[in-house]
């Protein structure tokens, strides 16, 4: 039986740049949410986000590629993967977020078309300008660059399942290794939705929190009001266990289980009783050959919206029953913001870091339990604990559900 193990990771988010800074701040319960710096927010309806402020990355379209390169370098460095030239036994799976829209450029194009009844001409010119823009994001170019750097000569996959994308990229990578389609898979996700149009689109969905940055995102708290958009990236070097052992690589964790499902309930709202989420969790447990009671920690999707947190709590109760009130749960989104396509990949890194350093990350701003979310929420500060097996959830728009199970390389 082939197994997928993690031999290298890279991470960047509002919590920090790189594993060391991220782990240290996560243990302290650092709040990465602050005033937006990437564009002027005076009078703008959305003013806070989980921005990366510890390093300088380009703004606009090149940002996502820069974040991806940053985390890939860290992951490759940790894995000490030998340099290769288009190795056929290496594959790539990456999730790339929806690219930002250059409103200033489009505004100039639209303003250049005058007269009455010009909407069709404006749309045609705007479309032409968008397509031909030098800086237009081209995800395939991003993938090619990552593949070249990592010596990938096998298949390259790009996937997108909204907020579940990161988990799905990792799940797909796991299957590729287990089937023997590759010995090494570079997997990850990148997203930065801190641009004016994306933030307004989330605002229009009534999904965002508006309190001051200190307490804006309050997952599972009774007075939660929404999420805060974040940005970041995560990369993993996944290897077949025997391949890693043969070259003397030290596994950080095993990617032991993965499950995916659809809510089939609505485009905007998740199933209120967590039907699809519970199914994905059950599938991941089955894939890992584990019972719910063997999970030591759950890194929840925990966005901080009223309905999502309630549905996730219901899903956990469906799977764990009364024991759902005992298994430690936290949402790290209160520290990082919601990284959308990169959320679950970054949270998988955070989960492995928590495992490696033996603590359960805190859920910031959790003070008033919600009777509809009666879980063992680890609040305030990190809790020392050995984590043998952890679960990390990612649920997305359109009813996409995904769940990962990570097993500590050091054993139980």
């Amino acid at each position, binding site marked *: 039986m082939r197994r997928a193990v993690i031999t290298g990771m890279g991470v960047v988010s509002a919590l920090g740049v790189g594993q060391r800074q991220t782990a240290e701040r996560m243990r302290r319960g650092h709040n990465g949410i602050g005033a937006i710096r990437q564009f002027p927010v005076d009078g703008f309806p959305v003013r806070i986000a989980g921005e990366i402020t510890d390093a300088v990355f380009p703004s606009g379209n090149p940002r996502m590629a820069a974040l991806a390169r940053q985390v890939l370098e860290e992951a490759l460095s940790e894995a000490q993967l030998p340099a290769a030239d288009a190795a056929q036994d290496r594959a790539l799976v990456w999730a790339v977020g929806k690219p930002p829209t250059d409103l200033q450029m489009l505004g100039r194009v639209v303003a250049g078309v005058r007269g009455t009844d010009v*909407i069709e001409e404006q749309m045609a010119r705007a479309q032409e300008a968008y397509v031909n823009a030098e800086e237009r994001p081209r995800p395939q170019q991003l993938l090619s660059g990552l593949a070249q750097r990592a010596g990938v000569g096998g298949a390259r996959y790009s996937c997108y399942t909204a907020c579940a994308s990161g988990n799905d990229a990792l799940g797909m990578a796991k299957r590729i290794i287990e089937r023997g389609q590759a010995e090494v898979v570079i997997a990850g996700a990148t997203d930065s939705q801190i641009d004016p149009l994306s933030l307004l*689109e989330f605002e229009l969905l009534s999904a965002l929190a508006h309190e001051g940055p200190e307490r804006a995102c309050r997952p599972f708290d009774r007075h939660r009001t929404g999420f805060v958009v974040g940005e970041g990236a995560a990369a993993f070097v996944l290897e077949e266990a025997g391949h890693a052992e043969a070259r003397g690589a030290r596994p950080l964790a095993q990617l032991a289980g993965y499950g995916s499902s659809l809510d089939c309930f609505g485009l905007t709202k998740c199933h209120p009783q967590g039907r699809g989420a519970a199914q994905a969790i059950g599938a991941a447990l089955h894939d890992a050959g584990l019972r719910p009671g063997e999970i030591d920690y759950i890194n929840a999707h925990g966005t901080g919206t009223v309905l999502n947190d309630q549905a996730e709590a219901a899903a956990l109760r469906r799977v764990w029953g009364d024991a759902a009130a005992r298994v430690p749960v936290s949402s790290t989104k209160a520290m990082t913001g919601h990284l959308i396509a990169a959320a679950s990949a970054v949270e998988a890194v955070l989960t492995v870091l928590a495992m490696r350093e033996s603590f359960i990350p805190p859920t910031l701003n959790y003070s008033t339990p919600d009777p509809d979310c009666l879980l063992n929420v680890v609040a305030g500060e990190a809790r020392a604990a050995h984590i043998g097996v952890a679960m990390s959830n990612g649920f997305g728009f359109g009813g996409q559900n995904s769940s990962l199970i990570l097993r500590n390389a050091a054993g139980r």
Partner: protein
Amino acid sequence: MEGEASIVAITGVGVLTPAGVGPAALRNWLRDPGEVGRPVPDFDAAAYIHNPKVLRSMQRLFQLASAAAVLAMRQAGMGSTAELTSHADVTRAGTALATTDISPITADLVQTLEEAGGGELQLSRFGEVALHKLHPFRRLTLLANMAAAHVSLLFGLQGPSFTMTSGVEAAQQAVAESYWTIVEGRADLMVCEAGDSPAYGVETETSREAAGALVLERWSSAKARGAAVVGLLRATAASGGVVAARIDEEPLRRCPASGGLLSMIEAVDRLSGADPQRSEGVAAGAGLQILPASYAEVAAR
């Protein structure tokens, strides 16, 4: 993995091209694609998607992909949730979508830019106007995975789901992942769909409009319910056999999302009269081979 367990049945195909609906129109279109930019003629999305509110929230390429899925599911005898439920466990029925980047240029965005001052754009003013002018669900209409959500809702699919965005290889990867999802026992049925439309893609000057879908089923399940199998999928290490319509050739290479699916549908159609004793199958990309429907019975003897 050997024998029946490694074979997946294709029980439905759906295809829409500028030459019309169905495999025969696909054949004609591949022979004579005509001008770039030709739309699917007389496409009435309401004939496939009956909820007007849902229909309004769908980009044309998602409407096309969903329509192809409806055609494929109808051929498979599961054109409604009730029919699907009578034949399959919905929690073990999933969907896989192949899609491309979706252009953010919409009428409501252009109107918002105009009203907010166009060339002298102040973000505060843009924000103020946008909250009144932009469609509240704008975000959802532009997400790449939304066609998968629509197909899920059309039929009641609750199983595994993924959306591939890997350029011209996306459709073949979506079908391959669906194949493995069934063979490895995580689903009994997968609906694979993709659609292209120049009006909403990002390669507007070169894209063609088309959509395709396949219904894949566990061979034993299809056989047990007496489904009409139109083709078979099998994993293969060999790249030999007749080559499927190549996705790097016109007009398929100008269908960045659906080209791979259309090439598979063309192969299924081409093999429908093939001699299973002699057929070597058709290399379908992503490590898969398409075989005639009768191959499994011949192999089992």
